[in-house]
Every structure is written in C-alpha cells, then in structure tokens.
C-alpha cells in the first residue's frame, strides 16, 4: 500500500510562511453543495429503497385492489368520480413517508454520522435545509407520479366520469404536496427526538391519536371530539378528495378543507423545523 505519497503541496512550507496551502482551489460552500451531498446520501442506503418501494406497492396496490373491489361488487358510487379511492393508498403510504423522513435524521444520530456531517458542514441551518429540500423533492415527485397514475387506472377500471380540473389537481398535486410536507415534519421530529423508534412512534401518535381520541370523546365531549376529528391529519388528507371532503364537513361543520389544510401543515412544519434548528444549534452532538 502507499505508505508515503509524494508531497502534493507545491508550495514550500517555509516559502508560504510555514503554513500549508492546498493546490485544490478553495471556495465558499453553500446550500447547493449540501443538497447534492444529501442526494448522494439518500440514494446510497437501502432503507430508501425499501421504504419508497413500500410506498409504491402500498399506494398502487391499495388503489388497484379498491378499484377492483368496487368494480366487482358494483356498489353505488356516491359522487360519480373515482378519484376518492386514492385516499386509502395515501393513508397507507403515509407510514412509509414518515418512516423514511424520521430515518434521514435519526440514522445520523444513531450511527454517529451526525458528528462527521456537522464537522464537514458546521452550518446547522444548511444541513437541515438540504435534508428538507431533498426529501421534499423525492416524496413530492414520487407521490405526483403515483397519485396521477393510480387515478388514471382507477378511472379506467371503474369507467367513471372524468373529474373536474380542480378535483384533479387537488387529488394529485395537493395530496403530493401534503404528503411531502408530512415527510419534512417527520424529519424535524427525527432531528428533535434523535431516536428512530421514539420519533416514528411520536409521528404515528400525531397522525392517529387525534382521530382515535375523537371517536371515544364523541359522547362526553362532542365539541372537543369535533375539533380533533376535523384537524386530525387523516381527515385533512381526506379533504383533498372530492367525495371524501364531506367526511370532515359532516362532523366539524366548517372545518378547513383542501388548500387550507396545506397552509396549516406548512405552518406546523415550519414551527417544527425551527425547533429542530434550535436543538441542533444548541445541543452537544
């Protein structure tokens, strides 16, 4: 093996004032560098393959099975559009999106890689930003492809009427944005909690607990139950689908639907990211 390499520093140490100067040009590092690096990271571990593969299988599979089931049993179709049947796949796929989101951070903490990362990039904001941008882009583009293709397949299988453009955009673009944001929220939680199991459990609690609580609170505290049901993440996600939009409406009356839900989640995610930044900045790693 190469024990001693010929000295590359062309400058004579004495001539350069005793300090080594690298022949590789130095430039300021920026967010773009961190994004490229993050992309290398996310594509080079198997957990990405497994969770995103799971997402594809869960989303497409559920969508097709439901469409097929409805077609076979020929239940009366409520609003005449097949778009709504995409919701169930999205709900299942959410688990994969959350898991990988949490893992992008918690795996750095559990392996100790975070120390290498923060030594190579001391700007915590840049590390956090790059992770969020890359994961958002990955989930968003994958979800866009999935929602689109599933919707087309379901419409073909069920021979349903073609949806209005607003419905179409809400059920594809809207759902993809919402899912990608939930992915980023999971990342923030992963950075805050550090521990994969803890963060995933917390994320599942955030998603499922309000809905479960609402069911048990209907009789003792109907008002609280209404609020929980309206603002629970599954109901918010459902509000992107035309036929399911009434689901939240029935119980919560004038609850937020569709794009309003998206803005709420943007706010929540921004808050969580702020918390994650503060934690990374202050904590010893």
């Amino acid at each position, binding site marked *: 093996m190469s024990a001693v390499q010929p000295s590359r520093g062309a400058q004579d140490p004495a001539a350069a004032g005793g300090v080594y100067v*690298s022949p590789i040009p130095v430039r300021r*590092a920026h967010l773009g*560098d961190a994004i490229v690096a993050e992309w290398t990271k996310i594509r080079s571990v198997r957990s990405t393959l497994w969770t995103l593969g799971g997402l594809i299988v869960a989303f497409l599979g559920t969508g097709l099975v439901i469409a097929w089931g409805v077609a076979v049993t020929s239940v009366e179709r409520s609003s005449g559009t097949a778009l709504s049947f995409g919701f169930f796949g999205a709900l299942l796929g959410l688990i994969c999106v959350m898991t990988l989101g949490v893992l992008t951070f918690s795996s750095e903490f559990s392996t100790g890689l975070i120390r290498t990362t923060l030594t190579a990039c001391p700007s915590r904001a840049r590390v956090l930003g790059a992770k969020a941008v890359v994961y958002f882009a990955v989930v968003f583009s994958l979800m866009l492809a999935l929602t689109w293709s599933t919707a087309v397949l379901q419409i073909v299988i069920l021979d349903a009427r073609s949806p209005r453009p607003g419905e179409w955009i809400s059920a594809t673009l809207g759902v993809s944005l919402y899912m990608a944001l939930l992915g980023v929220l999971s990342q923030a939680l992963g950075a805050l909690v550090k521990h994969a199991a803890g963060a995933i459990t917390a994320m599942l609690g955030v998603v499922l607990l309000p809905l479960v609580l609402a069911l048990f609170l209907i009789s003792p505290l109907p008002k609280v139950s209404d609020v929980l049901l309206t603002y629970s993440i599954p109901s918010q996600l459902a509000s992107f689908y035309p036929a399911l939009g009434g689901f939240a409406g029935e119980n919560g009356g004038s609850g937020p639907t569709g794009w309003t839900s998206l803005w709420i989640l943007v706010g929540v995610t921004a808050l969580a990211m702020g918390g994650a930044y503060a934690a990374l900045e202050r904590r010893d*790693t």
Partner: protein
Amino acid sequence: MGPEMIEAVRLTKRYGAKTAVDDLSFRVRPGLVTGFLGPNGSGKSTTMRMIVGLDRPTSGTVTVGGEPFRHTPNAPRTVGALLDAKAVHGGRSARNHLLSLAQLSGIPASRVEEVLGVVGLRDVAGKRSKGFSLGMGQRLGIAAALLGDPQVLLFDEPVNGLDPEGIYWVRTLMKRLAAEGRTVLVSSHLMSEMAVTADHLIVIGRGRLLADMSVRDFIARNSSDFARVRVADDDPGQRERLAAALGDAGGRTLSEPDGMLRVTGVPLPRISDLAHKDGIRLWELSPHHASLEEAYMRMTQSAVEHRSTDDELAGFEQEEQGPEPLVVPEVPQQGWYVPPADSRRDPRFAHGREPAAGAGEERDGAPGRAPESREDAR
C-alpha cells in the same frame, strides 16, 4: 491567518456538576505533530469536539486560524478531523460516504478516489462499511479527514485497531502532513507511538493543562535515567558489597526482585571502576533511558480518573479445592540470554532468523520464558 492555527483560551466545559475541561489554554502550531495526551476521561475528546464546534464550551473560546470553527466558510478545506471511526452510516459504501462529504464542500469527486488510494481502501470502497474492521474504519475516518486537503488535522486515537503496518503508516503520514506545514493534533494512549511521532506535547489531566512542551523537555523534566547492574550470581555477598560501595560514592541503589541493582547518581564508568576496585565481577551494566511512558505515568499519577484495583475475588475462593499454587521457577527472568543451543534446531526458528533476544522469541511464543515486564522497548 496567524501562525497559531488552533488556539484555546480559558476553555471550560461542564456537564452538570462534572467539569470535563477546566480553564484550558493552549496553542497548536503548524509544522509540528502535537501529541495530545491524558488519562481516560481527562477531557481530550471533549476538547477536540469543542475545537470543531460539536460541543459548545461553557466558557472560554477556541479558534482555528483565528476564527471559531462554526464560522469557517468551507470547514473541510480548513480542518479535517477523525474523531470517531464509527461515525459513519454502516449501510453506505465507503466511496459514497466520502463522495457525500466531498460534495458537501465542493471538492471534486476525483479526490475521493485519491484519498481511498492514500488509505488503501480502494479494493473495498464499494462495500458497505458495516462489514469493516476497526482498522478499516480508522482508515476510512482518516480518508474523510484528508479529503479536503486541509491545513489543520485532528486525529483522536488514530492508530486504535490498526495492525503494526497500519500504525507505521499513520506515523509516517502524520510526520509528512506536519512537514508540509500543516497543523497536526493527535491524541493517543500509546506512549511508545507518541514518542516516535510527536514533536510537541500537550498533556492534560482532569481537564487541566499539565504540560505544554517538546517531547524531549517533557521526558527530561519528568523522569530520571538510571543504570542497571547485575553482579555475578555465584558469589553471595557481592551485591551487598557493591551497594555499600555505591552508597559511599553518593549513589542510590534499589534492589530489584530479580537480583538486579538499579543505580542512580553514579555514572556508568564510575560504577565499573568501583566494582573493579572491590574485585566484584559484573555480568551486566546497562544504561536505562527513561521512556515517554514513564515520564507520562509519573506526571499523570495524581490525575488518573479511572484507577483500577486488584481483582481480589474476595469471597469466591474455595477452601479445599483451590487451584494448585503457581510454581515459581528458580531463575525466573532469563529473557535476555540466548536460548539453549538445541532450540536453534527448533523448526520454529527456521528461516535463518537469529533466535537471540526479545522480539523474535516473543513472537514465536517460545515456552519457558518469563515475561519481561521491566525491559522497556526503548
């Protein structure tokens, strides 16, 4: 950029009630390998983590090239650090790990292959680092530190887990990096390694600075040389006579368990003269130069954090069926003699190697040789 590349000023770190680093000030200069020594838990790693901004000091500052590390515009181009060889994602290949680090600071991807070659991991670069041995992990960590071709290098226990060839390689690497005008700070527990690698030493104990000086000064100040004398065994009373004569000459003698005399305060030729005058035959008269390890042990004695006690196995002894007492051989320590003649024909000593002393014999595990604890490598 000042000539002092790393500068700590009154650096202090407390974890709750425990003070890990206590009012520590030092400078690490370019062009030298600076050894960073201290017992376990003395605050070496905490100090190194504070240098690269992973831990925030409770008070005080530490700067690299005059700036706090977190403010360096492109950190890996200024400071390369190996703090923990296990700080990698085991599921990622060595190549991808380094590639992501290179991209993080805009280093061309071709540099990854370069450093993989430097640390000798090119053959396994595509494999997931989960399967790496400790030594391979160290090499990967060193590759990551070298990636940015930085001016300042920090290595926390770099030879941990490396084979002798790897240790030699790290030693030459450190020296070369320093000779190129870089600032190299290395922590290690291996004193013999530090003695041949480092030019300068920073020694801490319980988080405080104990010494900041050249290796030579450190040894000179913290130890003393002595002579080892062995008188002929076949004439009892000679040893006592010599000890008395040396005492009269102003020397101090200390009797070692194996019959040797440890003499300080009398130069070697004078010992020989005194023995000759009294008609005492000497079988051995050798100078003993203090090693860095001895100097270090002496200095840090009071600062050791985790001291071991004898394993007494109290209460576990069985009265009747105790193991047979060890048979102590009559002449226990003969390690420096040439082994008996017939062992030369021993197949284990083939390959024309002289089976004479120390190292070769030890490697072959020749039986009947008592461990030589007092005979230092130096």
